[in-house]
């Protein structure tokens, strides 16, 4: 029989080793899958894990891809630390984008970046409003936030679809469901690096992470509200005994996480699309859940996790183009990585021994 005994002291040896082992196991099992599907193993692994790093512009694109994942993931830290399961970041992302985009389209010809600045605020509010629906239902009626937030994703998807096909459709779009192009003041421009020039799609929006990440780290670890969120998540009754307001915490973590998803949407669309379209997100809100957990709900961890997942996604694109490997392979890798990481966490928390029985 296998016995799990909780470790008294967390093993720092395993804390470092377990993510490395998880990645190793993912690569190992991944190559078995490639082998079974009779793709060239080394070549496939090269395409998935190495090719995204093979050229400077490709490296830059990793950050472009990682940007929305990281920003949403940073927001989800709040919820997941408090044990509030916001599964609807995708919907909050869409709604933030839609609000900010509609606002931008009200002011064609605008050149000033004040517009972009207002869009960030409106995007945050839009995402927060969408997240406030599960928040209010949870606080007032104790409705499960997982179901409500998830179902609202589909409402948001259909809503943006309707808006882009109807009220906001560009008459000049030849019947395509696209809005007009954003005014200049609503576009996040690409970074023109000195001596190098443009690198892939690398844009200024990515720098927001440099501000957000340490800020959130400080908030979670060094302030009273951050402490309250952690305590609330680890023991509800004890947090009530301490006098923390349960409803306030539930409400605010959902609002912040929805708001940050909205901001991620504004950046993604303003930097890469420049107009509204039915599909503004490609499952970022769902992938970010994995990113948040891979990053162990630590802001810096989330940045690293976002980069790893983005690499795998771009690698899968390359693998598809070069070798014809189906793109869904990223899904498998994400799943395996998360699985091994959670397994690794068990090794960290428990001592595992095999007991001889009978």
């Amino acid at each position, binding site marked *: 029989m296998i016995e799990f*005994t909780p470790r008294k002291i967390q093993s720092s040896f395993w804390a470092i080793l377990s993510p490395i082992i998880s990645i190793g196991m993912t690569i190992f099992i991944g190559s078995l899958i490639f082998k079974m599907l009779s793709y060239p193993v080394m070549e496939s692994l090269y395409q998935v894990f190495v090719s995204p790093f093979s050229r400077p512009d490709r490296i830059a694109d990793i950050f472009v891809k990682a940007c929305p994942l990281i920003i949403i993931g940073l927001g989800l830290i709040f919820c997941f630390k408090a044990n509030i399961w916001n599964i609807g970041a995708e919907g909050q992302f869409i709604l933030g984008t839609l609000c900010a985009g509609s606002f931008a389209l009200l002011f064609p010809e605008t050149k000033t970046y004040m517009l972009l600045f207002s869009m960030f605020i409106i995007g945050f509010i839009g995402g927060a409003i969408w997240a406030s629906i599960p928040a209010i239902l949870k606080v007032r009626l104790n409705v499960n936030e997982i179901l409500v937030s998830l179902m609202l994703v589909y409402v948001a998807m259909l809503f943006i679809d309707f808006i882009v096909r109807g009220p906001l459709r560009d008459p000049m779009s030849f019947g395509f469901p696209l809005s007009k192009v954003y005014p200049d003041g609503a576009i996040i421009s690409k970074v023109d690096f000195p001596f190098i020039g443009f690198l892939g799609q690398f844009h200024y929006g990515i720098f927001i992470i440099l501000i957000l990440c340490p800020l959130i780290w400080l908030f979670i670890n060094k*302030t*009273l509200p*951050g402490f309250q969120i952690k*305590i609330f998540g680890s*023991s509800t009754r004890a947090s009530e*005994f*301490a*006098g923390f307001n349960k409803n306030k915490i539930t409400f605010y973590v959902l609002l912040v996480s929805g708001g940050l998803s909205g901001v991620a949407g504004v950046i993604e669309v303003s930097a890469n699309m420049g107009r509204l379209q039915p599909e503004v997100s490609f499952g970022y809100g769902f992938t970010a859940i994995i990113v948040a957990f891979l990053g162990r709900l630590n802001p810096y961890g989330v940045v690293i996790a976002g980069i790893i997942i983005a690499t795998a996604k771009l690698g899968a694109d390359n693998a598809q183009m070069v070798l014809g490997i189906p793109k869904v392979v990223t899904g498998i890798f994400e799943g395996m990585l998360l699985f091994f990481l959670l397994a690794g966490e068990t090794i960290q928390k428990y001592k595992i021994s095999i007991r001889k029985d009978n």
Partner: protein
Amino acid sequence: MTNNLNAMKFIEVKNLSKTFDQFLANDSISLTIKNGEIHALLGENGAGKSTLVKCLYGVVKPTDGQILINGNHVTINNPREARSCGIGMVFQHFSLFPALTVSENILISLDEKITKKHLEDKISIIGKQWGLPIEPTKKVLDLSVGEQQRVEIIRCLLQNPKLLIMDEPTSVLSPQEINQLFKVLRKLANSGCSILYISHKLNEIKQIASKVTILRSGKVISSTSTSKISTTSMAEKMIGKKVKKITKFSKNSFLNSLTAISINNLNRKKISQFGTELKNISFNVKYGEILGIAGVAGNGQVELMNALSGETLGDPDEIIFEDKKIGNTNIKFRRSLGLEFVPEERNGHATVPDITLTENTFLTFYNTYSKNNNFLDDILLSSNMSSNDSISIINDNDVRCPYSNPLADQLSGGNLQKFIVGRSLKANPKVLIISQPTWGVDIGAASEIRSKLLLLAKSGKAIILISQDLDEIYEISNNICVINNGSLSKPKITSKISAKDIGILMGIN
């Protein structure tokens, strides 16, 4: 020796040892129980009582040693095998489904196949035979704790056991129910069934058992006839040192002091399906007074504690502190007025198990650290304060830590409780409301906690003590009232209320 010379040994344990990892829970224990003997097993928490009993009942496999039944070597691999050897056990925490009837509960645990009707007849017969009256068609959720225990005992008796193990059977019973239980146990013993009686209550052991085996740190310290040993020396052998007697400092010197807190017609709805509704609870506590609230568990103590602490709210004038109406204020506000609370649940309510003692100090003190209570109150700033406070709590209350500033769940139950009580005392409360302060705490720590409470009352502070432990209530409180099914009896002076009266107030005749 009251036993017959030719009384047979039913079970003999020889040099039984059990190790968990490096920890030696049982260290070559030897024990003999004769047919028809009531044998008490005495020891503090962690002395190894439970492990030994689990070895006998097949829940845990011993690392070393032998068990002989009627002179034959046996290995007991699981509870089913234990039952077929004639060993039955009544656990401290009952394993009954509240939504099922008595007979259904027994039916699902029986090894043999039997129809429900036949079983119901059997239950009635056994009930009559041993003095355990029970209605087989009643649902368990409608039974009192004492009746639930009867169900567990009947469940064992249906298997015709030769040895009945009872783990802390009286911890949840009223005085009357205890007497009833003792009658049943004596009757069983006279019929030849041996009883292994686990307890840490010395008077009870004197009263019911003929032999007592005392365990300390996994070893047998002494095994003698109860007529040859006094309760004092039993206690000393159990804890390994002299027991400090604690005395009430002053009797009723509080009579002329002001009323600290008064509760007026407090009502609360159930918090869960199996919770208790509080009905018209009223009482006053004066400064310098300790009011003991006795009662069998599950009669509204948890709900009362939540109402007093402000975790559930009501009308403003339900609770009046000095002259402030605070029935609708939250726990944070009540703390700022000088009320302090120690809830029953140590891990996960009074403290967060996976954070350090310093952080746990911060948890209830953060209000006092921040002057203006604004949004960005830096934990870094106050961490020095909470660390100083937690160190002084640890030192003042003799909290033994495995290393400095451990996580809360790395402390033993007794030490964690000393820390929690110490934290409340550190806040220098005017009123302390404390629930089950010494539940599951070893004798040494319990008497330290009780003397701290007496000292606090002596310094003119008011204490409300909610406890299941009647001895504790008698030992330190000035007035006693009893909570029964959500209603509270009128307070009576401790010296003027007998255990029998309390039993009647608990609703048992």
